[in-house]
């Protein structure tokens, strides 16, 4: 049994199939005994990070802006697996998802450390979830877009003290995706 947090970045302004697809995945994962917390980001009150560093130097570990992003940070730290889900829009995951990702800063620590020969930040917690990504391709999405997304998310996971363990598409069957998550 895994604790799984899902961040659904469907902006809801178009006929994406992501919502219904994620519904299917969530049901399947629950039926296999996993505990799911799913956030539909567009329905939440999450403002843009204002870059104040308050979460590091004023109220360490918590954003000074008290909105729904705190729920995500809490759920993430309590999870074994964090699944990002988004349509590909203009070659990248949605703005709704990126805005939420910018608000994950509280879960890491300001102090610097060298990771694989590069400067990064230190962990605040002992354990971080493994990460996965589900994409719904757009009409204009090509292989280059997918590679760029994969590479940027792989780097983002270094900062989240984790690894990108899975990347799938809404063309894949829900069983396949659930199997992949089971095996992590």
């Amino acid at each position, binding site marked *: 049994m895994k604790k799984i947090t899902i961040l659904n970045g469907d*902006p809801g302004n178009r006929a994406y199939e992501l919502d219904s697809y994620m519904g299917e995945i969530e049901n399947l994962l629950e039926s296999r005994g996993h505990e799911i917390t799913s956030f539909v980001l567009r329905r939440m009150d999450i403002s*843009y*990070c*204002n*870059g104040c*560093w308050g979460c*590091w*130097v*004023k*109220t*360490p*570990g*918590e954003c000074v802006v008290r909105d729904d992003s705190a729920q995500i*940070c*809490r759920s*993430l*730290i*309590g999870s074994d697996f964090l699944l990002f889900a988004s349509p590909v*829009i*203009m*070659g*990248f995951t*949605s*703005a709704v998802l*990126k*805005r*939420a*990702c*910018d608000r*994950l800063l509280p*879960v890491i*620590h*300001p*102090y*610097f*450390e*060298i990771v694989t*020969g*590069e*400067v*990064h930040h230190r962990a*605040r*917690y002992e354990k971080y979830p493994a990460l996965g990504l589900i994409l719904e391709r757009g009409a*204009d999405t090509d292989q*280059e*877009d997918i590679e*760029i997304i994969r*590479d*940027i998310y792989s*780097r*983002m996971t*270094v*900062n989240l003290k984790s690894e990108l363990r899975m990347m799938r598409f809404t063309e894949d069957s829900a069983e396949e995706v659930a199997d992949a998550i089971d095996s992590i």
Partner: protein
Amino acid sequence: MRLTVFNGSNRGKASNTAILLEQFLAGFIEQAANEYETLYLIHEKDQTRCVEAFKEAETVLLAFPLYTDCMPGVVKTFIEYLEPLCGRDGNPALGFLVHSGFPESVHSHFVRRYLEKLSRRLGCRCLGTVIKGGSEGIRAQPERMSRKLFRLFFELGRIFGKTGQFDKKIVGQFARPVRFSKLGLLGARLGAKMGDMLYWNRLLKKHGAYDKRFARPYEPDKQ
């Protein structure tokens, strides 16, 4: 030349982005016929004014800080608003400035790939991406510590104003180090320690939060 500048920092007018752009633009208007307009993405209620400005622009400079190895959310919002302009005739030439807190330019290489692909997607002639690491201290430190950097940004702007190109030599200089060498890493370790002490600890103490710096408010209860 008419330049339309988009400042994509979440800190808006009080950003490092704004300080770097100020130097660049001072150089840019050395050429008497040059003019520019700056829009702050974060200060806009919705992005329609920015999209209009983009549509009418001749040359665009999109500048932002690296946020989680990519563009800040507000910049992605703006990019999504540009979708209807993909492939339209008369889109502006497009240049980028990305700067990061971390000192090496490698952190920004990935978003550069994205931005250059974005130019192609929009059908904009891409003027390239200027990358500068180690930008977080700029707005906090005394101006004299940034004198050389400011001079280079002024020069970059001046040459851009004359030629419409980013000067390769200055861009190359900003890009160093791409990564630290073995020896460089020794210095970087020391720099990291200094950063912890002189930057983070100072701020933590200023806000009376030093003793709580390792707080884990979201730690699951251990039962």
